[in-house]
């Protein structure tokens, strides 16, 4: 059986095309499992996984926890508000303390870019990055591509626009790497203040007009504006943002084709996306959530099989 080229999932940029293919094929199998009456397999009965969330999360945390439980792994949950991090303990010490209780794998969300990479160099456990600052969120990008593949048959050759706050987004960056690796074309669209100045060097198109972007694409991935990460107002008001970068039904209907709408959540209804769009048949937002569990099961399963060797 083939295996991943990496021992950790720190970011999409550390994966190759075959890795993504393998994760998708494994996820196909697990997606079938989670739709059975008994949604559980005994694969990881001997594996213990710690979910370390140093930053708030609802869906990613639940999705990982569910994926772990569906694989029969033992699960430990930890969030920074309950931890010694606030007492001044270092990240390495915190994680090593948990690992000394015989934990095999760490799923970590952290506010600092590179926290997963840093940890992987200093502790002995398989690390899955569940989002590190504005760096990467690899499982989100994998489930996004997987959902495109499910809806449109293939990712290769598709045109995908990522709309919104690109500057503060790990989802955007991971998606760019994942989509390009699979042969899709990528565009980013948003106010110039929220687009990194040098992003075109990654080989993506940059567009500031939403209509032009939507007319170009097959898929639009709408991102949330991350007000909590902003040190200054990058646009004058939510109202003005929505006027320029919000997707509504009227705009969708006026396009020359029917495009697919995605959103990594949580949605700000009426800001980047209106309710009638979010709930329409063009939207695959809830499919993304379901696929998230299958993708995370696949990633955990594949990394665990490397530990067992």
């Amino acid at each position, binding site marked *: 059986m083939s295996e991943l080229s990496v021992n950790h999932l720190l970011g999409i940029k550390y994966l190759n095309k075959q890795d993504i293919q393998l994760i998708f094929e494994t996820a196909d199998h697990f997606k079938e499992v989670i739709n059975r009456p008994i949604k559980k397999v005994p694969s990881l009965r001997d594996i213990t996984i710690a979910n370390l969330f140093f930053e708030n999360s609802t869906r990613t945390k639940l999705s990982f926890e569910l994926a772990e439980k569906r694989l029969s792994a033992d699960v430990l949950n930890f969030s920074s508000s309950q931890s010694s991090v606030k007492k001044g303990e*270092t*990240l390495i010490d915190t994680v090593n303390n948990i690992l000394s209780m015989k934990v095999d794998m760490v799923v970590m969300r952290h506010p600092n870019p*590179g926290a997963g*990479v840093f940890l992987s160099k200093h502790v002995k456990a398989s690390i899955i990055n569940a989002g590190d600052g504005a760096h990467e969120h690899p499982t989100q990008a994998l489930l996004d591509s997987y959902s495109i593949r499910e809806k449109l048959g293939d990712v290769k050759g598709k045109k995908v626009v990522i709309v919104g706050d690109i500057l503060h987004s790990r989802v955007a960056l991971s998606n760019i790497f994942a989509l390009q690796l699979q042969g899709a074309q990528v565009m980013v669209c948003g106010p110039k203040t929220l687009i990194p*100045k040098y992003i075109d*060097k990654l080989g993506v198109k940059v567009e500031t007009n939403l209509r032009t972007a939507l007319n170009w694409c097959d898929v639009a991935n709408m991102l949330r504006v991350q007000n909590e990460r902003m040190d200054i107002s990058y646009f004058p008001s939510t109202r003005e943002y929505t006027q320029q970068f919000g997707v509504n039904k009227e705009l969708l209907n006026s396009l020359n084709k029917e495009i697919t709408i995605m959103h990594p959540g949580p949605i700000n209804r009426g800001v980047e996306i209106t309710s009638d769009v979010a709930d329409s048949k063009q939207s695959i937002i809830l499919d993304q959530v379901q696929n998230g569990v299958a993708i995370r099961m696949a990633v955990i399963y594949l990394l665990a099989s490397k530990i067992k060797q």
Partner: protein
Amino acid sequence: MNILIKSATIIDSKSEFHNTTQDVLIENGVITKIAKRVTNPKNYQEIKLENLHISQGWFDSSVSFGEPGFEERDTILNGLKTAAASGFTAVALNPNTNPVIDSNADITFINSKAHRNVVTLLPIGALTASSKGIDLAELYDMNTAGAVAFYDYKKPISNPNLMKIALQYASNFDGLVCSFPQEHKISGNGVMNENITSTTLGLKGIPALAEELQVARDLFLLEYTGGKLHIPTISTATSVALIREAKKKKLDVTCSVAIHNLYFTDEALNDFNTHFKVLPPLRTQTDVDALIEGVKDGTIDMVTTDHNPIDVEQKKVEFDYAEYGSIGLESAFGALQNIFTLKKTIEILTKGKSRFGVTATSINVGEKSNITLFNPDTKYTFSKQDIVSKSNNTIFENETLKGKVYGIISNNKVHLNS
């Protein structure tokens, strides 16, 4: 101190023995004889080393040691030992201590620590009280105690009127004002150069613009006020161009660049290695090329190690939380020789002394002996065992460097590495 140096190749364009191999006799700290063969008159200590070369003593315009307040990083005495082992006979010490060096008494304390040391320590006082950027420190009083310049280390003076007043006030006593080139509203929470690498890593970027705005501002101010301005550690191509233009206008401005900014680009940060987290940040190849050109044509007056020991607790953390800085004294000679010829390297290492109040002495009979001894050809991989500093935060770890230092003769004393 009496010493006979045997068979040393003299690299000193101010010496009549430049590029020749000679014996050098030093008696009571003064060079008394230079000749092909000097016999040892009275059983003096003889220095005879493989491929021995000597030059004027080296100078570094920006080092930090930590004491007082951060002794875990390094102490003044060990810092001076590091300087001596690395070939430096004079170092200008930044005031980034706790408390900040911002008074006559503080300068006197620093001087007392370095009293009778083989290395000459040149204290830099803070420009503003506690380096808070609000009110001027007692510049004149520090000057009388021996402060050679005034600098809020790595802290921009964000109020342009304060910088204007500092330049005007210090000109009363010919004081040297230093200004860190960064407009902090533009640099924001940035932690590395803004470019494709910062974008790929999701790290906040410090645009080159942040530095260039501040350099341009300070040059405008200098043109208005007169006085003496030093801009430590520039890092961008446009900064070089701005300062080149200012020098054409005869403004009294000097500047320096850190060796690591001549050596690495921001691509080195690819792996989130905090040893590459320095300020100003590592920039692009275009910047590196322009900086090297600036050193060659004299636009950049000094190349500094910007030696800054940081203990492991402040470096072995998430990238955003890591302190800026790298030690640099130990690797300086070997790294510079990877960029420049030996002749240029020595010229760089002996330049800029007068700006910081040091009199240069050449290797000629009758001069005070202020000499660095080295082998320019030794190649080695720089590793922890080459570090004398208390802290190990070196940006040059595992680099193949060229040239090793044997020691120094200075202040009527000798330091030889074992």
